[in-house]
């Protein structure tokens, strides 16, 4: 048994690997263009190239798949020579930083010929927790400011106006540590300032103060850092570092490219100081990082979780309703094969199970919502969780129920009818055991083995039903998310959704097999 489960588990892994590879290839080989899908049809070629480069989509297929699977931070570490760490800012953004020897976190940007270093102290999670509770006072002012993270805070200001030592050629790590200590004291005063003054008061006189106000517990110090340039063979200088939007990048001195970044809501932003090549940083699928959605620029994992929860709520409620009802009706139909009850139930069940989900959904919307005006015909939750609006759940659940009911009913009926034909039931009747006793004690127990396992195998099909139902009612679930991602060719989101669906499908199949051995002791897997 253990061997069997192990073998199946191994097969699950292989399946997931093959599927992920196939999805990558299919999405890759298909016509159409992510940049155009995400950013609109009217982007210029430079904008498109810049977008593709920043997302790492100009890399060869094999390399992208490898990065998606295993992550790319270890490649970045090899290139830069620093430890790369991922931290979560207070607003829930994930940021990558390079960690220096003395526990400061570093990122760089390029301005003209100068390399600008951004540092912040590195905190372990427990430290930052305590800091959060202490810095609630200044967080009110931080909400007023419009910048969404510290990344954008000090980008356009003259960054070298901070407490940096005059940007000489040699800035060692020891000097940066002294800066961080001095900056913490400076920021302490600046945060005091900030609590007194309005947020529009902090002009260019203290950019570090502005950044500290925006992300209350950390202080980002900027300074020139031209000592890190490395000479290449052909005489130019280059530097591999971490930029401020989670890439490991290579800058070349005097050869800054133009960067187009797309800021949602405000359009394209053109800036100089672009690097020569990008490696987007991620941890990789195997370490639990689904990557960033190309469509929304948000981590896939987070949005997927909410969607998955919504879908689970929908499927769960439908399942709880369908199972007892279908098993009961199926047994009633199967007790006497060929009777009117049987024919009626099985034909009705068949009809409901073969009508496409969207047609059933439309019928229900028209009848229940349009003509009878009982319940809303769409499921739009906004920020709310599905269970907070039960009236909107009625129609989606009803649609799913009708579709699944027919299928399970027919399986149960077939199984029941077969059991009722078997000799031991006849014997039981002839012995004079009461009718319902025979049905419940002798027949039902055996008849339910098949449906329970087949239902598990049916999950595959059920998921299809859920996707359609979600689209029909505008329900914000996993299926809708997957459909949108597929239409946009948002490969990270597709991969993540696919993996979850395959895992659920294959997992339930495995569960069905295991369940079957327990329910039917005659079967042993060896």
């Amino acid at each position, binding site marked *: 048994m253990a061997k069997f489960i192990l073998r199946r588990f191994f097969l699950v892994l292989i399946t997931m690997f093959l599927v992920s590879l196939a999805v990558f290839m*299919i999405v890759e080989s298909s*016509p159409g263009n992510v940049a155009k899908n995400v950013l609109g049809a009217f982007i210029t070629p430079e904008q498109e190239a810049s977008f593709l480069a920043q997302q790492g989509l100009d890399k060869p297929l094999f390399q992208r798949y490898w990065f998606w699977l295993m992550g790319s931070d270890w490649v970045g570490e090899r290139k830069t020579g620093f430890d790369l760490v991922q931290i979560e800012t207070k607003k829930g953004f994930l940021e990558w930083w390079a960690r220096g020897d003395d526990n400061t976190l570093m990122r760089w940007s390029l301005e003209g010929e100068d390399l600008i270093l951004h540092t912040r102290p590195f905190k372990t999670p427990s430290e930052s927790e305590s800091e959060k509770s202490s810095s609630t006072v200044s967080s009110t002012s931080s909400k007023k400011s419009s910048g969404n993270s510290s990344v954008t805070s000090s980008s356009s200001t003259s960054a070298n106006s901070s407490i940096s030592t005059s940007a000489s050629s040699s800035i060692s790590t020891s000097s940066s540590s002294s800066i961080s200590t001095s900056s913490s004291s400076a920021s302490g005063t600046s945060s005091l300032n900030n609590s007194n003054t309005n947020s529009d008061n902090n002009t260019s006189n203290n950019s570090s103060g502005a950044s500290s106000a925006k992300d209350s517990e950390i202080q980002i110090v900027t300074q020139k850092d031209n000592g890190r340039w490395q000479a290449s063979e052909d005489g130019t200088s280059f530097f591999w570092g971490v930029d401020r939007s989670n890439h490991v990048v290579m800058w070349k001195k005097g050869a800054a490219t133009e960067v187009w970044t797309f800021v949602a809501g405000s359009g394209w932003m053109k800036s100089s100081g672009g690097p020569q090549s990008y490696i987007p940083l991620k941890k990789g699928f195997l370490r639990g990082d689904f990557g960033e959605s190309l469509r929304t620029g948000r981590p896939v994992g987070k949005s997927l979780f909410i969607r998955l929860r919504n879908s689970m709520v929908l499927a769960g409620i439908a399942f709880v309703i369908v199972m007892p009802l279908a098993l009961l009706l199926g047994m009633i139909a199967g007790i006497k094969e060929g009777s009117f009850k049987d024919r009626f139930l099985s034909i009705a069940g068949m009809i409901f199970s073969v009508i496409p989900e*969207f047609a059933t959904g439309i019928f229900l*919307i028209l009848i229940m919502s349009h003509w009878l005006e009982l319940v809303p015909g769409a499921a739009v939750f906004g920020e709310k969780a599905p269970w907070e609006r039960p009236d909107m759940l009625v129609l989606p659940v009803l649609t799913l129920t009708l579709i699944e009911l027919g299928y399970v009913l027919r399986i149960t009926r077939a199984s029941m009818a077969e059991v009722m034909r078997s000799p031991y039931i006849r014997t039981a009747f002839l012995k004079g055991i009461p009718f319902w006793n025979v049905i419940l004690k002798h027949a039902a127990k055996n008849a339910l083995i098949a449906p329970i396992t087949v239902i598990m195998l049916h999950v595959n099909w059920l998921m299809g039903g859920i996707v*359609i139902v979600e689209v029909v009612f505008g329900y914000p679930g996993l299926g809708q998310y997957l459909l949108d991602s597929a239409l946009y060719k948002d490969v990270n989101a597709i991969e993540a959704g696919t993996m979850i669906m395959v895992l659920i499908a294959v997992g339930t199949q495995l569960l069905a097999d295991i369940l079957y051995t327990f329910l039917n002791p005659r079967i042993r897997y060896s």
Partner: protein
Amino acid sequence: MEKNSRSTKESVAEKTINPDEIINSDEIINSDETTNSDKATNSGEEMDVEQSAACDKETASEESETALEEAGQNIAMQRSKIARLKDAFMILRSSGTAMTGLVIVLFWVFVALMAPYITAYGPMEQDWKAPNQGPSMEHPLGTDELGRDLWSRLAHGARIVLIVLPVNEKVWIPGGTAIWGVFASLFCGACLGLISGYKGGWTDEIIMRLLDAMMSIPVILLYLIIVAALGASAVNVVIAIAIVGTPGVARLVRSLTLDIRTRDYVRASETRGETLFYILFMEILPNAKGPIIIDSMLRVGYAIFAMGTLGFLGLGMPPPSPDWGSMVAKGREFILVGNPWASLWPSLAIASLVVGLNLLADGLREESMRYQ
């Protein structure tokens, strides 16, 4: 002429013998393990006909006169065709559900065939003065948001499903999109299943594991990825249906092949030194076709289901074409405006056609099981 008379005579003979043969087959099922495939088929009669055909072929091939063999095959095929048609009709007549299904399906086939003659407007003809209207004398089912006649769009939609496959704007191929999808999946599945079942060993293992992996992916996901990747067009819908259907067909064909390859006539053709292609497609496949045909009937239903679903998700035919699924998707937006008809009729159409096909298949299977 001569052939025809012979074949009809033989079919009559076949008809008279039939009851005995059925009893025989029952005995065979009980006594002999090698005819397991009879159990797998849903229609015993069909299999009997084919078995006798196989017998004919066997004797002919032992004489190793190709001309005679071909003639024998032709006769056997013709006879079995006529016999099957008659049997099917008899079965249909006796089953209410099957008749209901047949009537529904025939209705849609008729509508699809006659679409240009029974509609007053073209499917893309717009009437700006009458958008979003309910049923009236001018438009029997009403109009959609662009004032297009719903009845003519429905009829032409049936055409796409059942009668023609629009390859692009100009080129149309006979045979509906759903039909082509089923055919393509039959072809791919049969090839894989035959090779896998006949070769066995590593080939079998690799093919079947790959197909298992494919089957474990949720169907809807497969459709989504394929069509989203290939783009929305009728040909791509066919490809999607084919890819999704292939594993199922391959499994069925493989299980049939595993049984058939142990038969003597396959042995004989191996001994004769026939090529692999000949053995697979001339010996094994014709003897496995009974169950495959019944399976493919159900598959047409699934294919129409899939077409509708894809159309609804916006992955079906490109917009102006009268695709049922996309008609529903478009009409859904106008329910709140007060025009439920644009989404109701195509939903009803697709539901009735799929239900009709399933009723037909169900009734046939039920009735044919009665004779087993």
